[in-house]
């Protein structure tokens, strides 16, 4: 009984508790407290998200109703954009929701309706709002601004956008490059001359997509960038030559067959195959013996497309014969090297 009392006293009387035990219980209480706080944070953040979603939906409804009315109702029955702006676009959250809806609609419309939306964008002061973003310090805000100006077809800020094509952040860089393709109507790819960073595959894909979206009237001759030092720019130009079937670039492509980079040569083989450049057949057959295994495979895929069947069959036979002779020579050499 006395022992039990002593034990109970130990747990109740913190003065007699060893220091380490006390510290342990304190840390355990701290962990439990943090867990409770985290749980509370989860509950509160759910509540906050709910409120935000309701606000978003409310503003979205207002935006859609106003845009529809602006586009299709008689002018005298529509609230003026200036009044709407004063009444509803009172903070950046609401402006952003309105902008998202406006841009979404603008993407899917053409002609007069699209022009009317651009007018609305200006009259509501949203153009200014987008322009201001270009001067922000955060990369994502700048990229957001570039995206908005591009979607709304605002060309005045091309110069400023061009200054971001070599930005250290890859997403901002990519957004700026794609924006120029769509906004710089006279020379959509001229920024390639000033690129200091390599173009990743992702950036190339974005540029190709931007070019598609822009329905470019003045397509540049991509062979002009085939002599660039930066390999990724050359590869991108080759891909664009194929995409836009620029057959006039074939002589320039043939010159690249002797480029020191195997990766780039592989891209040329692929391009010659897709362009069906018959003039390349002789050169490819001559290059075959000294190519990398991967590029050899690419040549073998290309030749049947750009040469006659009998020429290709003869070439294959020649390769087989050379390989057999090589194997036999190796065998003889190995046998000779073996100790007697």
């Amino acid at each position, binding site marked *: 009984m006395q022992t039990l009392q002593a034990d109970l006293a*130990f747990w109740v009387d913190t003065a007699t508790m060893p220091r380490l035990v006390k510290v342990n219980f304190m840390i355990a209480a701290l962990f439990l407290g943090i*867990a409770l706080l985290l749980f509370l944070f989860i509950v509160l953040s*759910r509540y906050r998200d709910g409120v935000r979603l309701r606000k978003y939906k409310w503003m979205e409804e207002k935006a859609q109703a106003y845009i529809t009315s602006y586009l299709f109702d008689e002018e005298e029955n529509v609230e003026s954009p200036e009044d709407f702006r004063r009444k509803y676009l009172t903070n950046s959250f609401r402006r952003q929701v309105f902008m998202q809806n406006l841009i979404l609609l603008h993407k899917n419309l053409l002609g007069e309706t699209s022009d009317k939306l651009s007018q609305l964008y200006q009259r509501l002061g949203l153009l200014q709002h987008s322009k201001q973003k270009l001067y922000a310090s955060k990369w994502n805000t700048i990229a957001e601004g570039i995206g908005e100006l591009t979607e709304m077809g605002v060309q005045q800020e091309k110069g400023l956008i061009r200054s971001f094509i070599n930005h250290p952040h890859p997403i901002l860089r990519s957004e700026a490059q794609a924006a120029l393709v769509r906004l710089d109507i006279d020379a959509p790819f001229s920024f390639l001359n000033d690129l200091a960073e390599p173009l990743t595959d992702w950036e190339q894909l974005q540029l190709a997509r931007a070019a598609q979206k822009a329905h470019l009237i003045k397509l540049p001759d991509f062979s002009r960038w085939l002599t660039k030092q930066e390999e990724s720019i050359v590869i991108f130009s080759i891909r664009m030559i194929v995409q836009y079937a620029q057959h006039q670039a074939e002589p320039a492509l043939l010159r690249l067959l002797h480029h020191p980079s195997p990766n780039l040569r592989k891209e040329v083989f692929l391009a010659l195959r897709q362009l069906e450049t018959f003039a390349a057949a002789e050169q490819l057959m001559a290059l075959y013996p000294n190519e990398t295994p991967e590029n050899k495979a690419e040549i073998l895929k290309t030749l049947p497309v750009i040469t006659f069947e009998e020429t290709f069959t003869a070439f294959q036979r020649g390769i087989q014969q050379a390989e057999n002779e090589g194997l036999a020579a190796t065998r003889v050499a190995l046998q000779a090297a073996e100790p007697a």
Partner: protein
Amino acid sequence: MHELITEYVRDTAVFFNSLILYYAIGISSSYLILALISALAMRSYKKKNSFIDYRSILSSPLAPSVSLIAPAYNESLTIVDNVRSLLTLHYNNCEVIIVNDGSKDNSMQLLIEAYELEKIEDFPLQSRIATKPIRGVYKAKNPAFHKLVVVDKENGGKADALNVGINVSQNKLIACIDVDCVLEPDSLLKLVKPFMEEERKVIATGGVIRIANSCEVEDGRLIKVHVPKSFIARVQVLEYFRAFLMGRMAWAHMDGLLLISGAFGMFDKETVIRAGGYNHDTVGEDMELLVRMRRHMYEERIPCKVAFIPDPLCWTEAPQTWKVLKRQRNRWTRGTAETLLLHRKMILNAKYGFLGLVSLPAWVLFEWLAPLIEFFGVLFFLCLVALGYANWPYFFSFLALVYTFAIMNSVFAILFEERSYQQYKRPRHMLHLVVTALLEPLLYHPVTTWAAVKGNYDLLTGKKSWGEMTRAGFAQKKV
């Protein structure tokens, strides 16, 4: 004499206690550090991702070509539906390779009938990795299934089937999956992106695997997400949050990721082949392959990266019974240990950079040895109790410490889920998970620790089997 023994036991106890204490501090700190790094990485990823339109990959001729490889063994109940689901994934430039690994049921016949397959005699097969013989390669006569390639081969296990898929593949990237997993429609688009955006060569990408138990699945598509009804599966939801959202995200950010789940991962085919393909002699072939690929790249001095994306991409069915769970954890332990032993040369070797100096030692200490240390700690404590040397106040205070830390860690993991992709939308789902977090250390953790100890024992005794994974399947609407 008695005093001498008492003193000896006391000294040993003090030494062992200190060791365990420092180890516990080390492991807990590592969890917290990983969680913080992961939080930063996740924030940056979400910010970047808000600018990404994955449809741009879908429609582009510049998107890389992908081969989806799914090994199948005795999957006749679900194989036709699963293949249909794979064929509807959003990706244009891709082929779906199903490798029938010598199934004893009628899987092959079902596939031939459902997809109008015909045997291709002159299929351009590259046998760059040695495998068991192939009986035939089949393609669909119906152009609607032109993406599908079915390979029938002799049974050789999952690793062998995947290697056959690699040999058959015609594309630059390969995505290896378990055929019974449910993939998100955009999963391939998301996994491909890291291969395109990095200046450094990306050799592999992995994503988050989620638990599909109790979720609604229709035609191989996930319709509605529910928290699993079974306690065992629910705990695994928490485990997966911790492992994927808090662990792997951080390791990938530090370029130290060692594991991409076998359920779904994408690899650069050429690197896989150069590293030798999947290893037949281990039960942890997914981890072993990645470690070998990274080792190969270090030894060849080619800078590379393994990427990880936090999006939920793949849903899998988790074990729902203690028996199956123990079997799975036993196998995972053996797989981890086998990989670490196979590549022991890399551990604490500066030649392998961060991988050798941090990742691998951390795996040895905190993944492989953790259950063993815990088990021997418990045994030691039981000895002290038997000898009458147990210090109960210390015991309870440490127990409280460990228990509350485990709860805090799990609630932190739930927060990660909430702030990232919030798949469990209903408030009661979250409450269920919190309650599960309270019970996990008491009911679930001892079982998995025991399974891991048993796994180590089996490794010592040379057990090599996979252990059967019984699954309920996704055939009905609700799993």
